């Protein structure tokens, strides 16, 4: 057994155990934390496969941003466990069907490499060992797939604008501050110095 192999088994074992814990943990916050552990181990597996860039991006994007918001929401929600368990049997068939479809697709994907190796290699670009993989991804992403890349960015932008439009409400009875106006205010415009004679008042 070599060192990378040892780490491969370590990462995969922890990833699988934590993935099981995600669906079996009673506390939803624990479930999200196990999900994060699973992400971490997936990142470790990427690292072992030589895809350091993907590994670190997985940590930055999924663990550092997406899972934080996930955790944020789960902590804020007051989840009622009893009502969640009630519909379990009702939804079970749908879940089983989705699981079977996913499993079949994965088997097909893995099987196609065995059945016809040339079909599997048709779409992939050959790996050039002399370039590091971040540069390699960039060279493909910004040349061959540039329009798809821009399209994906446009979809994300539309989703973001949609979310903002749905949630942004301008309430008329809330006092809003404009820091630019506040800073630009001069004492001469708002203050008046009055000499008051004693005993007379204003």
């Amino acid at each position, binding site marked *: *057994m070599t*060192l990378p192999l040892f780490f491969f088994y370590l990462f995969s074992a922890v990833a699988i155990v934590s993935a099981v814990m995600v669906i079996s943990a009673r506390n939803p916050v624990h479930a999200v934390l196990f999900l994060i552990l699973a992400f971490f181990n997936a990142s470790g597996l990427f690292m072992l496969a030589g895809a350091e860039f993907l590994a670190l991006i997985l940590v930055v994007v999924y663990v*550092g941003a997406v899972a*934080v918001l996930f955790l944020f929401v789960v902590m804020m929600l007051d989840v009622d466990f009893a009502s969640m368990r009630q519909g379990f049997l009702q939804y079970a068939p749908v879940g089983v069907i989705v699981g079977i479809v996913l499993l079949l697709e994965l088997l097909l994907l893995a099987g196609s490499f065995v059945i016809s190796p040339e079909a599997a290699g048709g779409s992939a670009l050959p790996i050039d060992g002399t370039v590091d993989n971040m540069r390699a991804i960039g060279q493909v992403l910004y040349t061959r797939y540039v329009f798809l890349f821009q399209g994906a960015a446009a979809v994300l932008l539309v989703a973001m604008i949609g979310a903002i439009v749905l949630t942004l409400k301008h309430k008329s009875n809330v006092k809003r501050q404009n820091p630019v106006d506040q800073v630009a205010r001069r004492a001469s415009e708002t203050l008046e110095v009055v000499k008051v004679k004693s005993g007379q008042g204003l």
Partner: protein
Amino acid sequence: MDFILSALDYLLGIPVLGWGVQVGLIYKALLLLVGLLIFTAFILLADRKIWAAVQIRRGPNVVGPFGLLQSFADLLKFALKEAIIPGGADKVLFLLAPLITATLALAGWAVIPVDAGLAIADINLGILYLLAISSLGVYGVIIGGWASNSKYPFLGSLRSAAQMVSYEVSIGLVIITVLLCVGSLNLSDIVVAQQEMGLAHLLGVPWLSFLNWFWLPLFPMFIVFYISALAETNRPPFDLVEGESELVAGFMTEYSATPYLLFMLGEYISILLMCAMTTVLFLGGWASPIDLPPFTWIPGLVWFFIKVSVVFFFFAMAKAIVPRYRYDQLMRIGWKLFLPLSLAMVIIVAFVLQLTGWGWHGGMA
């Protein structure tokens, strides 16, 4: 069992004694750890002394000469007291949170080159690794706040989650601008690039190497990075996470003794990590500011820590002289000011580099 031997050699090897082929990783890591902890102890004291000096107080001055041993006395006090865990707390997560904070803060230092070739791991994706590590720092705070099962810590951790995720974005974009100029993600390359090109070379005075560093051509990004670093590490004026006037001590309210010590340690080490990142990205890393003999005799390691201390001095001054921000204004400068500014700078820098052909080409594969 071959791999155990090779792993042992990698971790524990001592070539002088004929055991293994390289100096073990553990010794280097221990050296860095101990050095960093001692440095942190004095930085903590410096923080309190500077704060006191601005307010015309003396600061800690009882333990040791000029209070120099104050931090060590504090360490003993924290380590010897009883750690209290609240009854309603999630015990495992409650104790895990400070460990996460301290471990992540220390892990970031593994890739920092403190001198030419002196990094525990001089990896090619060093800066991305740092970004990943600093984006994880929020977990210690969120888990700590939630596991305490108490209102103030929870509110504090919610604030910090939003704050740290917001400022991560502008830090990431600032790093991208620097990367565009260098063309490499290796931290040592970034430092070398600042030596080999820049304003001093253009002006024909290459010995004035402090003019070469990126703080000058990327000055707006330098400022954005400095302020974002304050916000990212929950330093005043952005310490709403633990704003004592409203949240007692924020996410640390329920912590005591060693777990609290770990939180404080993690916080200060990640502040130093941010100072080190500023040094590497903008202030030329281990290089001496003037490339002439009396200055170049000083080893790079010393220059590096002098620069880190100077950056920390500005962190401490910000704490002493700037009043605390209001939360909505904090979010406003993060999203409405820094994000558009840094996004625009990424595009402008990319255009300038493409049109003029400037930038460092030593790292291009």
